[in-house]
């Protein structure tokens, strides 16, 4: 098992190094001059050149990359040329917000998908299964921002139950924090839940077709018992992988949802950074997001092997 962990860590480090180079290279190709955005409509060429040289933007890209990437392992994300502020603390502050957003949405998604998917599998061929299939199809087709907008009209504008937008820090007032996160969680979570429901259903169906399930049933284990004792752990392995993959989709979804609900997370920071051409900030945020996705998929890979011993011995 230790061998697995070491190998996985090595791959993770290599992928991160490659990803940071790719992110940096992509941003170099982005059209639009950061100095011009900062100095505005009437900036003269001398002032633009001065600003570029002050921030070292006139040096070769390779030098700038090495300088930036060299700081990353120490947690040094560099200093923004646009605001003059350090990027690391800004990312740290926003990452917590996005973390709770993703976690809450995931909880909503699992809370919807597990019962719905299991029920659909158990009720195969009956109207309930059909209803779940239709609803999950609708959920897959509705984008999170549309669901978010509809929720706001319903729960904030019409009913007046929840604030339409805005954020309160968890440490400041947990109740208010939860009230403000409900709609973002639902918007992201219900859409992801729909996707997950379909996976859960097919995973359970596959398990229910296995020989050991027939054996268990023959030994007199009840329908529910089979689902819980054999179905859940086995379908769980498949689900874990899907959830691992969905972290990336969820992170991408936060960009839109944070904008709709004005939640000050990483996605909001990213969009603003792109618009201001705050490249140091943008590359920092993207690298953190890529790192999270890679780490989660590595972790779910390892967990997979813990849960299912067959995969461990296969290597």
């Amino acid at each position, binding site marked *: 098992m230790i061998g697995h962990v070491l190998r996985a860590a090595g791959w993770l480090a290599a992928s991160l190094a490659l990803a940071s180079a790719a992110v940096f290279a992509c941003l170099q190709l982005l059209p639009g001059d950061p100095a011009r955005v900062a*100095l505005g409509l009437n900036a003269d060429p001398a*002032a633009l050149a001065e600003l570029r040289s002050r921030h070292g933007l006139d040096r070769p890209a390779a030098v700038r990359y090495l300088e930036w990437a060299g700081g990353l392992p120490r947690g040094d994300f560099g200093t923004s040329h646009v*605001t003059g502020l350090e990027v690391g603390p800004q990312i740290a502050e926003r990452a917590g917000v996005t973390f709770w957003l993703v976690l809450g949405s995931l909880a909503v998604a699992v809370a919807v998908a597990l019962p719905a998917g299991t029920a659909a599998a158990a009720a195969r061929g009956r109207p309930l299964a059909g209803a779940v299939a239709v609803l999950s199809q609708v959920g897959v087709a509705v984008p999170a921002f549309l669901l978010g907008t509809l929720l706001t*009209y319903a729960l904030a504008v019409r009913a007046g139950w929840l604030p339409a937008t805005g954020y309160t820090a968890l440490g400041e007032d947990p109740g208010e924090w939860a009230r403000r996160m409900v709609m973002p969680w639902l918007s992201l979570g219900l859409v992801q839940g729909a996707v997950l429901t379909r996976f859960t259903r097919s995973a359970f169906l596959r398990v229910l077709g296995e020989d050991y399930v027939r054996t268990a049933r023959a030994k007199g284990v009840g329908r529910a018992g089979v689902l819980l004792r054999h179905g859940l752990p086995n379908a769980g392995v498949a689900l874990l992988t899907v959830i691992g993959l969905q972290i990336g989709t969820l992170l991408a979804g936060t960009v839109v949802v944070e904008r709709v*609900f004005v939640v000050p997370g990483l996605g909001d920071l990213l969009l603003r950074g792109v618009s201001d051409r705050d490249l140091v900030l943008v590359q920092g945020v993207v690298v953190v997001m890529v790192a999270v996705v890679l780490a989660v998929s590595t972790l779910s890979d390892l967990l997979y092997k813990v849960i299912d011993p067959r995969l461990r011995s296969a290597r």
Partner: protein
Amino acid sequence: MRALEPPRPHGLATTARALAAGTAAVLLVSGCGAPDDGGGADQVRVGLVAEPASLDFTSNDGAAIPQAMLSNVYEGLVELDAEGEIRPLLAEEYERSEDGRTYTFRLRDGVRFSDGAEFTAEDAAFSIERVKEEWTIGLADQMDVVEEATATDAHTLEVVLERPSNGWLYAMTTRIGAMFSRTGVDRLATDPVGTGPYTLDTWERGDRLVLRRNPDYWGEAPQVPTVVFRYFQDPGAMNRTMLAGGLDVIANMQEPEELGSFTADGGFRVVEGTTHGEVVLAMNNDEPPLDDVRVRRAVRHAIDREALLETAWAGHGTLIGSMVPPLDPWYEDLTGVHPYDPDRARDLVEEAGAEGETLRLRVPNLPYAVNSAQVVQSDVEKTGMDVEIESLEFPARWLEEVHGAGDYDMSIIAHVEPRDLHLFADPDYYFHYGGEKFADLVEEADRGSPQEQADKTREAARVLSEDAAADWLFLMPNLTVAREGLAGLPRDQVGEAFTAKTLHWEEEG
């Protein structure tokens, strides 16, 4: 005349109600409370677009910075009143010498910065010099005309100009004229120090900027203790927050087609005023075929601006015929110079031999520009020329390619700075208009007496319009949506700032 009532989202609301039923269970767990975060008489919550990247307007050009900081946290020696006239602020009075080159400001006594330091003529001289020495934004060159600024005693400042300039005194009412403390300029990006009626309380990035009443303010204390600026990247989110009770004002409505949702029954009031934001159809005066004045005039004759205003900004706004808005004292209605006349437009294009020419209309990806571009395209194509629309990301790409490199035939952008007619006088500016008569008039206006300034500027605006240096599609309105009971909002946007000190809640009657 088409009715302007926008369609209400009925279908949406029904779907939304169904969704509401479905999610009610979750809400019970989360607990239901007051409509939105506590509004009240002790604060005003203002919705704005585009959060500032930093609070330092000396090194970052973003309009959101002076909007929040100027007249609230920072003050100048002079300011604009609600009618757009210059009046003293931190200066009690000022005098202009006979030759127009020397200004003497008599400064107020007992003014303190929020860091406790006293405001003196030394600070004023320091602030003016600093614009020339340290500021990096393009606007700072408006201070170049200053030869010397000296404190002749603790409360008297003398400023000598290289030449007489009316534009300089006007610029002193903008961010250029903000007064800084000699000991308070180390962390401008996050910790502004000024003499204003408010001080910065907190700035929660990505969400809100909170100003608190300055207890040591030299002037009349503002009535509202706390002002919250909330920033929205998505105008739709701002509207929904206002509807749900999370805001007291939308300072400058960006979706005029949604104004119908804010009814008096709902407790809202809509105020329509005007601005300095000329939506300019820029034409590249350097490149064929638009280097030919006949073709430029043809473009102006071709466009049905009334219809365009309906499409682009739901009919809100004013038609103008040159780079001067009605807020300026020398405004003259020039909409008749090249009126909508498609036949004349076709004749002019034929005369200039420009049929079949292709014009690249490269616009920023902003709603008013993209909407206007489609009308311009369909109107101008009726003259026999082709128009290709390309939408560029704003600000970064548009600034670099159109504004910076001049790689365009036509573009559409709102020039929001006050009194920016002079932009056309610089032949290197992206219009590439080289009218000498116009440039001379602009310079004479800047040097002259108030009467000369008005006469020459009026004439310059007329020359500019007759030369069809550009087309002026419309003037942006100032659309403010306010909660019933909030008073003291300016009708027009005369300067760069959102001034909070005049706001107050009316007593419930």
